[in-house]
């Protein structure tokens, strides 16, 4: 078995060329990030060192990386599910806010229920809230053709304003901060690794990843979802009720995004605080694109971005480089991954052979 044919076989594993593809995009984005760091008068290598150590340098740091990646697993999946059906769900941010608030309200309102009931109940409530918030633009798109990019973005603003309004006026606890009471202890998710802040939310996230993978590859609904995304006309001709599928897909997407909010409330914050999200919904887009809209890919991409988030703290601390630089990297990642010809151009230039990405 000569190396060339092994390479050929490996290449045909559909995952591999996609993986290389995404890796190249990250490398490029980080490269440009490094250039920007250098231009602003800092040491790029040092910065990335601190980034790396901050993400992986100790048990606590690794736990932080995992912790930070949890909301991204959910929002990334949410966006990816939408993409698989041809829908751009930019509204994960708004959906997670409602998920978080409803979860907090349920938990606070039922303090006497046992954890076994309260935890699933709160999660389901948050999930449902997200599903409804996403179904709205889904319905508008299916009925009126209103482009979901704009409607979901508008709903994000409405969600942050709306949750803030509700908390300020109905659920506020005493004190200067706009936040709710803490949720009862039995509603909090148990820790996964002692002495860290990582909870079982991670396991939930991985479970949802696997469930999504199964949905897309082995169920009739997943079939409909993908068919609508790849060829709407052919799907309709085959009898698939495309409009219903669109709304359902958005609802599923929103349900997953809602869980992002729920797990933050139940795992990290212990309550709902207004404007708590540093843009998980938007980072979720980068995660989905980088993960090529595949569940396992999203998991990997979420971990990567979680690492960036965890490392960012360390980098900011030791080098005074503003963390927003990593937002720049995120944007670049999206641009690079979304541009197939660019990667192909580069791979030909490097003489890796046109064959490498021939299947793209």
């Amino acid at each position, binding site marked *: 078995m000569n190396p060339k044919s092994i390479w050929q076989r490996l290449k*045909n594993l*559909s995952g591999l060329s996609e993986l290389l593809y995404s890796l190249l995009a990250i490398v490029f984005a980080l490269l440009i990030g490094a250039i920007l760091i250098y231009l602003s008068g800092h040491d790029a290598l040092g910065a990335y060192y601190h980034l790396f150590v901050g993400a992986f340098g100790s048990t606590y740091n690794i736990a932080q990386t995992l912790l930070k990646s949890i909301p991204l697993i959910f929002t990334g999946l949410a966006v990816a599910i939408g993409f698989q059906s041809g829908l751009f769900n930019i509204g994960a941010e708004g959906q997670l806010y409602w998920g978080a608030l409803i979860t907090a309200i349920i938990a606070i309102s039922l303090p006497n229920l046992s954890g076994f009931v309260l935890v699933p109940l709160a999660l389901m409530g948050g999930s449902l809230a997200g599903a409804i918030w996403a179904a709205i633009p889904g319905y508008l798109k299916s009925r009126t053709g209103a482009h979901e990019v704009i409607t979901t973005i508008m709903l994000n603003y409405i969600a942050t304003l709306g949750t803030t309004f509700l908390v300020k006026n109905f659920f506020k606890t005493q004190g200067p901060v706009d936040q709710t009471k803490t949720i009862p202890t039995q509603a909090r998710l148990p820790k996964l690794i002692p002495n860290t802040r990582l909870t079982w939310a991670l396991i939930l996230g991985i479970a949802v990843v696997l469930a999504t993978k199964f949905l897309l590859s*082995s*169920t*009739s*609904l997943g*079939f*409909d979802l*993908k*068919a609508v995304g*790849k*060829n709407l*006309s*052919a*799907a*309709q*001709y*085959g*009898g*698939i*009720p495309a409009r219903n599928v669109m709304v359902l897909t958005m609802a599923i997407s929103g349900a997953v995004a809602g869980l992002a909010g729920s797990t933050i409330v139940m795992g990290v914050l212990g309550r709902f605080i207004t404007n708590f999200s540093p843009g998980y919904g938007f980072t979720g887009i980068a995660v989905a694109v980088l993960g090529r809209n595949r569940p396992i890919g999203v998991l990997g991409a979420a971990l990567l971005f979680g690492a960036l988030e965890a490392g960012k703290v360390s980098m900011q601390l030791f080098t005074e480089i503003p963390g927003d630089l990593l937002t720049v990297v995120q944007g670049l990642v999206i641009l690079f991954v979304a541009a197939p010809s660019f990667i192909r151009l580069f791979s030909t230039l490097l003489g890796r052979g046109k064959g490498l990405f021939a299947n793209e």
Partner: protein
Amino acid sequence: MTENAVDMANITKKFGETVANDSVNLGVKQGEIHCILGENGAGKTTLMNVLFGLYGHDQGSISIKGRKVDIGEPSEAIDLGIGMIHQNFMLVDRLTVTENIMAGAEPSKRGLLDEKKARKEVEEISARYGLHVDPGAKVESISVGDQQRVEILKALYREAEILILDEPTAVLTPQEVEELFEIMRELRDDGKTLVFITHKLKETMAISDRITILRDGKNVGTVSTEETSPEELAQMMVGRDVVLRVEKNEKETGNSVLEVEDMNLHNPENNLTLKDLSFEIEAGEILGVAGVEGNGQLELEEGIMGLRDLTGGTIRLNERDISNFSTRERRGAGIAHIPSDRLRRGLVTEFGLDWNMILGSEWSEKFSRKGFLKQGEINTYTRDVVEQFDIRGTKGEVTAGSLSGGNQQKLILGRELTRDPDLILAAQPTRGVDVGAIEYIHKKLLSMRDEGRAILLISAELEELKTLSDRMIVIYEGEIVARDKTGEFSEEELGLLMAGKRGDNEL
């Protein structure tokens, strides 16, 4: 001895691994009508796209009037006096005729468009060659025949001396074809050189001076029209003796399978309305729908399948009223559908063969249990259909997009016909498909008919309709203008009816 208008020497053009043109030599004399004949996929359009600068070429050279040239893009071809009239018109629906013609070569006054001047020039050329169109009309509102004239005007406006026409008759009635041929003869007599791409033998014999036959990307010969025959041409096109017609058994009468009564439907996108369509198809019968594309065939297709809502009338399948059924329900009730555009509406090119095979059946008991797909069953079914329908090109993990046109069509056929349907709605079933597959598909449809199923056959190919249908209806501007047994229609009559001129046949 005057040089050739066009000389293409040893042209080779590859797309990845596929060789579309293989060392093709072509010589077109000045002032002649030269036909390029070949099956679908023989490389005719590719060769002309190379000439017009839309494609580059890997090897070979091009000479215009004896001078070697390098045509890198259409603007260079236009400068050399070459104009191309594409099979799919390169027109913008929303703009006017004049705007479509002048774009890229606009006359202007002080920076602003001088539409008046352009309009005048258009009217002059129109008058000279008999290409009458309304310069101010939006392209979307004029007839297909007129749109084609706009295409020709575009080339003449830019002073083309060499005109390439790619399958121009596909969308015309027989009368419009004659009119087109008249215009072509006028242009030739005026000194222009015309290259005419087609796969239709009759037309080639009717209009051309000389013919070059392409097969599998190679030039298999150039003949003078008066010295050849359709049989010889067919043989050269396909490489073997071709059966030009399939044999059909006598029809046995049966129950009514499909009954359409006073069907009314409005399509806001193109403003076409089906008016009071009524017809019936019995078991064991093929009803052909003749008409120039765009006269309501798509609306009829989609109306019967439930993809568009009726504004009035009823549809009955096996005596059951299905007018309010969803598409899924109609398919479940026993209708198979072979759509007119397989790539856009019949297949999901990114899916593998197995998933395309169950498109529409993914919730059925055969392939799923409570929403979970039974992959084993799906695989077995796929294998069976591939074998039964002789679908080639399926080695390994292939997607439907990688199959050839004929094999894709067979996949769709396989999927639809193995569902044991009572009614088969087949729209343009052999479009863009090679001759071997055409034969297969025709035989398959006839055998379905002999098994007692009903078939509604919508086709733009009159030959196909005449070969397969027991009865025919002609559709024009959303109405049925004639119906009769196939044998009762002459080609002339059909042509007139398709163009909207009434005939003697009963309604």
